[in-house]
């Protein structure tokens, strides 16, 4: 499923890699760090070229490049790529904070037949690309086919796992067409799956289901200036500097139930130092009052803002969101007793304190995250939040490994959290050495085929609110290495079978029970140690309106943001 992320460079960002990249894209550390070193403060100077009108929303981001290619983006439907690309379905965050899947380019969220194995969509009338050409079902199919190409890797891949007859398919540039997606006429598209899948409407809301004009997008550079279907199109996209989105004249509000298209322009200023950018937004200096911070606000700036009421009201914190966990490399740490000892030794309280304290989220005991229907709260190990070093020692004695040596990889931004875990494991007799690395090196190290680590801290926000997106990418044995996210390198045939069975189960209640059983089985194996369900804090300028965070995902809804007039 998702082959993930790349980045986490969160300089002072107290957050998870995975989450971040979704919204913004991939960044290159070197440039960033150069800025940091020379203390140039980055961004504002680099972005000086942006013409700022009074109705411009500015997004300050640490990333140094933003990819808008539907085949390689991991962006959530309601963040950056959602401004540029419409797709068959999309998400609507309701006023009470619920996230619903709603038709976007299609007239319905999908009509299923053959027990959920075949899904049919009809496109609305009068849809046009930003180049004026009509959007047809062939363009949707072309977009999906492109995502199978070997030259466009790194995007979301849920559909690749679910579509039938994809074996040996390597994209449309080889001259072949994907048989399991058919387009009977220019407004109809039909998907044939390899298993019944009730959550297909959610999958069809992901960015891979955005149209790409048939025959276009053969080059990687398509990621910079794709043809748009949403309210905004790319005027310029300069890596390391800025991305300027302006109104797409062919977008029509009448066919789009979700996007406000409020700001006349959206400008992403890249390569920002988060600490400085956060100050700018909080204090309203420069474009600060009409800006949002693309990443989570650094803990220090959050604490600083809390002390001043005028700034505190610019903060928005999500509910319990992504699962943060300590991934144990199950291929290295083969003894279940040792893994259990790790679970008992880990002080979740120390971890959370090192992240910034209470506000960072609730303690986790299960894998399926809050807000997902299949979630059932349980705690099979009953580990105290401070850990139980005595019990851990006893388990290690039983395993006849009283001082196991473990290597933990981490980004430099995770050093405090990693140190906290290292210290609590040391109390139980573990000898943990931490190895920090550049964030891009880290994202390769954790997901490559070698898996040269014993421990790492990871975080996972499902791509859509379904237990499938929660469990399968992290624990299915087919997702080990190769850029995939089974970071625990966990392989249990029983769990694979449960995932398969639950995926195809039409009865929701029974499917939920199967997911819970998978969750529990993985926990009994101590494949990972759940730490917290992280709460993300965001900051927006005083003139940015419509800044909402639903219960899922734990990110603000970019599609509904507006700029208020000065003085209001």
């Amino acid at each position: 499923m998702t082959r993930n992320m790349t980045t986490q460079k969160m300089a002072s960002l107290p957050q998870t890699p995975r989450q971040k990249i979704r919204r913004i894209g991939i960044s290159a550390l070197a440039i960033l760090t150069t800025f940091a070193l020379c203390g140039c403060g980055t961004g504002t100077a680099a972005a000086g070229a942006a013409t700022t009108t009074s109705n411009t929303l500015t997004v300050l981001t640490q990333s140094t490049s933003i990819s808008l290619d539907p085949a390689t983006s991991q962006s959530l439907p309601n963040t950056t790529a959602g401004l540029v690309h419409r797709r068959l379905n999309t998400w609507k965050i309701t006023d009470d904070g619920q996230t619903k899947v709603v038709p976007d380019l299609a007239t319905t969220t999908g009509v299923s037949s053959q027990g959920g194995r075949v899904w049919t969509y009809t496109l609305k009338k009068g849809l046009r690309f930003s180049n004026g050409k009509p959007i047809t079902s062939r363009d949707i199919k072309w977009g999906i086919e492109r995502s199978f190409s070997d030259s466009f890797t790194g995007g979301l891949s849920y559909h690749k796992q679910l579509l039938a007859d994809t074996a040996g398919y390597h994209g449309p540039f080889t001259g072949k067409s994907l048989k399991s997606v058919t387009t009977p006429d220019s407004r109809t598209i039909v998907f044939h799956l390899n298993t019944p899948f009730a959550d297909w409407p959610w999958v069809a809301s992901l960015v891979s289901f955005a149209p790409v004009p048939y025959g276009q997008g053969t080059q990687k550079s398509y990621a910079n200036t794709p043809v748009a279907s949403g309210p905004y199109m790319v005027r310029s996209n300069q890596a390391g500097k800025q991305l300027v989105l302006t109104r797409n004249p062919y977008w029509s509000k009448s066919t789009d139930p979700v996007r406000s298209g409020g700001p006349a322009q959206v400008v992403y200023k890249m390569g920002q130092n988060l600490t400085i950018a956060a100050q700018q937004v909080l204090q309203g200096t420069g474009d600060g009052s009409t800006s949002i911070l693309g990443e989570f606000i650094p803990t220090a700036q959050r604490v600083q803002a809390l002390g001043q009421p005028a700034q505190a009201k610019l903060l928005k914190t999500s509910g319990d969101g992504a699962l943060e966990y300590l991934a144990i490399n199950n291929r290295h740490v083969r003894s279940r007793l040792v893994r259990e000892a790790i679970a008992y030794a880990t002080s979740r309280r120390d971890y959370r304190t090192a992240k910034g304290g209470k506000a960072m989220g609730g303690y986790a005991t299960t894998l399926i995250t809050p807000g997902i229907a299949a979630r059932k709260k349980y705690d099979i190990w009953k580990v105290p939040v401070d850990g139980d070093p005595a019990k851990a020692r006893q388990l290690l004695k039983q395993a006849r490994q009283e001082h196991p040596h473990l290597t933990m990889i981490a980004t430099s931004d995770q050093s405090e959290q990693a140190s906290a875990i290292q210290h609590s494991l040391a109390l139980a007799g573990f000898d943990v050495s931490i190895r920090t690395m550049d964030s891009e090196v880290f994202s390769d190290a954790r997901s490559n085929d070698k898996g040269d680590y014993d421990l790492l801290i990871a975080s996972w926000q499902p791509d859509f609110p379904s237990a499938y997106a929660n469990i399968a990418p992290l624990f299915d044995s087919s997702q080990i290495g190769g850029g995939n996210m089974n970071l625990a390198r966990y392989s249990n045939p029983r769990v694979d079978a449960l995932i398969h069975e639950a995926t195809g189960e039409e009865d929701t209640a029974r499917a939920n029970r199967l997911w819970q059983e998978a969750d529990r089985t993985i926990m009994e194996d101590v494949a990972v140690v759940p730490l917290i369900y992280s709460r993300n804090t965001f900051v927006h300028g005083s003139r940015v309106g419509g800044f909402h965070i639903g219960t899922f995902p734990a990110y603000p809804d970019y599609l509904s943001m507006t700029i208020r007039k000065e003085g209001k």
Partner: protein
Amino acid sequence: MSQARSVSQPLSHVTVKSGPRSCHPLRGQSLKSQKSGAPQAPGKTRARSRRVDPRLIIGGILVTFFVLLAIFAGPLSALTGNDPYTPHRELLDDNSVPTGFGGGISAQHWFGVTPLRGADLFSIVAYGAQVSLTIGIGATVISMLIGVGVGLLAGYFPGVVDAVLSRTMDVFFGFPFLIFAIALSAVVPASFPRELLLILVLGFFGWPSIARLIRGQVLSLRGRDYTTAARLMGASTGHILVNELLPGLLPLIIVRLTLALPGRISAEAALSFLGVGINPPTPSWGRSISDAVAWVMVDPMYLLFPGLALFLVTLGFNLLGDGLADALNPRARRREMVEATVDRTSGKATTGTVGTVTDGHNARPDSHDVREEVQA
């Protein structure tokens, strides 16, 4: 004052008269050390101390202080029962910010504790001194060894050798060091000690500037009479390089050493800042500073202490280096003074002084020296 002069004057005259090889820098050096280091009559101590460059004193004190801090980091931290690793959650509030005055400064925690984990900041600064100094000194020594070696060869063998080595220096100058260091950290196996890696990397990239300097110096020395004489007497190239040229470069090397060291310490800090330096939880000033920058509005002490330590140790080495530069290589300064003197004094006196300057190997005279000598 006059007593002091009476001690130093004869020595400087000795230098001037010390035979055909008086221009050998080593002579000058040894005489100099005799002069400033030789035991003196007790009554003259006060007068003598006035002649020592205050930069040497301050720099020496700072450097000594940090060396001692590094050596005794463990016992000093243990005085209050601390180490740089143990978290003190009880000293943090709900947002993981230290409670109490100045980031939790107390009798137990002299510098307070860090936000997020509540580790003892004094211990971090003290243990960080170990890391910074070890890496700084190690890397500088490696740079010196390579730089002096390459510089000697390039300067002594003009032509192909010089061309090849000089172009190599140019390449190293233009090499994107930080990117290389980041890439290297990805390639080197996890088991390889990071401290050693940093010493090697910083050392390996630090040599070109030294080599260039040495090369220039050798180019001027190789034509000197004593070098020619040695060559005519049949001395081997190795002998000339090591026994004739190298001693003349010593003052330069020592000065460069003290000036390069703070640069290496800062570079270590920069690499730790980038996450490719010392691995946590081993304390490092660089990592502490990079972490603390974000907290400066909330907990300024977190930045102040490690920042001050880095500042002071850098200042210390720089003062020491500057002081030594003047003490060991008085020419430039002396010439200035002489020029000033020429304006004020008779031609005869000036000539005498210039003679001293040309030889340039007597002890570092300060302005009093020159002027009084002239007047005498």
